[in-house]
């Protein structure tokens, strides 16, 4: 009983300092996404059929199906609360997906159901944006150089591969999610989901080639829980 009290007061102290930094009270889930094994070597992209893009690179960029970093870290992994959190209304800001140098920036774009998705073409060439959803409507739009941004939204949660038929190497992903608790890992593979109310959550990590992994986490008060994900790399 006494131990629990000590632990509890220590948690409160920690939480107090967290609140001072993070603003609204709530728990945090943080961790790192890594892989084990040997990931497939990403091949350089041959853009010679599109000179206006090829000239933007001194060395050819490589495919981004699996992006790794130091310490076996995995980039471009979507970490989100797949169960336990209520659905959130879409924010007013748009999620922006840019075509630049015949690549998608970002490679994985996470946004919410019914949130505005803005697609921008910064290249000197025509692209067609062809997302391939299974649950949402499939559309396919041309966006020649210098034309305005395309505005769209999706009304169902889904991971959607995106391609450009004109430039077959162009490949990206939309992660359409139900609530606001999500992030995409950057260089280093670390992630942080903050401001979580107390509750029992399922945290899920999604990588476009390695699939999904989930873990159960219970948050009480404003503690920080550590959750790490380790994906088994596919050698090919």
């Amino acid at each position, binding site marked *: 009983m006494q131990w629990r009290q000590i632990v509890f007061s220590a948690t409160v102290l920690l939480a107090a300092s967290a609140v001072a930094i993070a603003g609204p009270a709530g728990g945090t889930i943080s961790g790192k996404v890594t892989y084990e094994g040997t990931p497939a070597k990403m091949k350089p992209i041959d853009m010679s*059929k599109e000179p206006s893009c090829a000239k933007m690179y001194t060395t050819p960029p490589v495919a981004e199906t699996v992006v790794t970093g130091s310490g076996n870290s995995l980039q471009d992994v979507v970490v989100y609360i797949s169960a336990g959190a209520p659905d959130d209304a879409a924010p007013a800001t748009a999620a922006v997906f840019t075509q630049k140098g015949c690549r998608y920036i970002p490679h994985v774009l996470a946004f919410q159901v019914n949130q505005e998705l803005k697609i921008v073409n910064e290249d000197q*060439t*025509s692209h*067609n*944006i*062809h997302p*391939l959803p*299974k649950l949402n*409507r*499939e*559309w*396919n*739009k*041309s*966006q*020649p150089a210098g*034309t*305005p941004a*395309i505005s769209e939204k999706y009304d169902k949660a889904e991971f959607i591969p995106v391609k450009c*038929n*004109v*430039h*077959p190497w162009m490949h990206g992903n939309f992660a359409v999610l139900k609530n606001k608790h999500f992030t995409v890992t950057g260089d280093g593979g670390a992630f942080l989901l903050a401001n979580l109310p107390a509750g029992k959550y399922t945290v899920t990590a999604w990588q476009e080639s390695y699939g999904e992994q989930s873990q159960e986490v219970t948050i009480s008060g404003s503690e920080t829980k550590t959750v790490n994900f380790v994906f088994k790399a596919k050698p090919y």
Partner: protein
Amino acid sequence: MESHIGSLTGDSDAGRQLYFRYCWGCHGPHGDGNGENAPYLNILPRNFVAATFKCRSTPTGTLPTDEDLYNTLKRGVNFTYMPSWLALTAQERANLVAFIKTFSARWTTEKPGAPIQIPAEPSLTIASIKHGAELFQKLECWKCHGQEGRGDGPSASTLTDSNDQPIRPYNFTSDNRSKCGRTNPELYKIFMTGLDGTPMPSFADVVKPEDAWDLVHYLRTLQYNNPSAELTLWESTPEGNAIVATKRAKETATGSGFRP
């Protein structure tokens, strides 16, 4: 489920009988395109469960109208294994449209898109053909369809449909039929609505309606083995005549300028 085409009302129960006589061999008992014949077809039969359709009058990403589906049944889909079902009665085709709609819940949860507005076709001029040719360059239609419209552009060999099956861009020199019909308004609709499920995108957001007609006029001149008003006018100019003459020679065994 019902369908409404003009004064016709189609009934899905009546359509079911027809479907399991004429359609299921390719489209399958579940309407998912996995019929007995499907593995032998190199443009796979439509999957009605996904409810994504190529030939529409409605914007990309929306359901087609009943009339669109009816017209597809009547016309067939050119360059695929889908034949024309002209031999059925109009009522039978309407019944089939109603039955096809029972395969996907989308037909109950969503409404078909609003058909795109097609302004009256402006008079054909050399200026409009030339402007169409500029658009063909600017919109980079040639990336897939090729500079001469032969379906041999730099991206052509890499194209796949939404099921990852190889698919060829339309070769304008092959015929005067396009996938979704042979009239000018049908050609207009193809690039302004896109052929959903294929690499062909919609240009509705980037091409103004009057410009779209110019592009239609130019595209007709690429169908140089099939007489059309556009081709005749184009050939009457020295510039057009020179282009068409060289192209046509390539297409014949003897290079003698044979014209069917």
